[in-house]
């Protein structure tokens, strides 16, 4: 298949933010096999990467990067040494840098939550 300029735009942005070559992935699916959260995801981690490889901007609407907790299970399993969590973070960042927060403080019940949970959540899900 041929990528046009619009497709390239998404790929370039994700490669810039993550420092990863997205085409290094050969779709073996090992990231998805080991991911502890696939049941909650609308796209499997390897499907997210595939969409990025095709420059498919619909990947920005996926819930998967927001469920990914950067646990790095896929990162230690990837036979190509790809940093899949960095690609997930790049997708999150594209939304966050548009000033869109994924969590709103006013909607949350923060009572009883430890600071370690709040700080990490807000660092990953707010702009």
């Amino acid at each position, binding site marked *: 298949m041929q990528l046009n300029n619009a497709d390239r735009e998404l790929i370039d942005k994700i490669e*810039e933010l993550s420092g990863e070559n997205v085409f290094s992935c050969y779709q073996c699916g090992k990231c998805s096999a080991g991911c502890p959260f696939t049941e909650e995801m609308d796209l499997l981690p390897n499907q997210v990467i595939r969409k990025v490889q095709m420059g498919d901007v619909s990947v920005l609407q996926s819930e998967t990067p927001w469920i990914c907790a950067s646990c*790095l299970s896929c990162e230690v399993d990837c036979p190509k040494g790809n940093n899949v969590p*960095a690609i997930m973070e790049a997708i999150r960042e594209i939304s966050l840098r548009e000033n869109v927060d994924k969590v709103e403080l006013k909607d949350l019940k923060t009572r*009883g939550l*430890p600071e370690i949970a709040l700080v990490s959540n807000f*660092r990953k899900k707010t702009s």
Partner: protein
Amino acid sequence: MKEVAYYPGCSLKDTAKGFEDSAIQVSSDLGVRLKEIDRWNCCGTVYSLTDDNLMKQLGPIRNMIRARDEGFDQLYTLCSMCDNTLKRSNYLIQNDDDKRDKINNFMDQENDYSGEIEVKHYLQLLRDELGWERVREQVSNPLEGINVAPYYGCMLTRPKEIGLADPHNPTVFDELIESLGGTPVDFPYESECCGSYNTVDNQEVVLEKTRTITGGATRSGADLIITACPLCQFNLDTRQAELLKATPNHDPVPVIYFTQLMAVAFDRPRVNKFEEHAIDPRKVLKIENKVASKR
């Protein structure tokens, strides 16, 4: 007494106070003083994976600078999330000259930092500096017949560059449990993520992981679970109490810090603040009546 620089992080001063208190106590028993570094700040809890934003590296790096400026060449952590962010920022500084220069140019109040500090987890102090024999010598209340599930979670062993054990087959907790006279239990979810910070806005994910991880431990015969992560401890303990309300036939299993287990084996149970745990570990550790009568 040996003195080491120690970085506590936020949780150990609050929700994980029993973690810090037990660590200070068992260290003292082992002849080590944990010197809390002055003016430490938040590590950021999660390492930034974005290549172009170096701002998030400043927090962890400033802590290394504080330790260096106090004359130390090593910095010890207890919380596995702090351990992870500090080690990874340090790794970045040591291996990326360009980013190191940018960060140093930005920080004008501190002297330049180039990764002189070695960041180590407390488990590395036990395993690599003191050795298990030294731990064994301090045990006055061996954990005979107690089956302990070692829960490593994510941040102690991943990524490979900074992990303190093989990410696919870590053994450091198992070695510790054996040194304390307990029995390590092999269970399938020892390195599976608990759901982490999703506990704030997506509790369902964490409840499901809690069910899987604690259920896996009890089905493997565990009496309790040990961890080094205040967020894992919160999730597996507090969310398990919620799970119990929804699923009364759930078999509860206490989740404690590895230093609390050491304090029990060293016969110092009172420092542990077990009364603050949602799933009370005192019964399985057979210390219910001891607390009143002993130290």
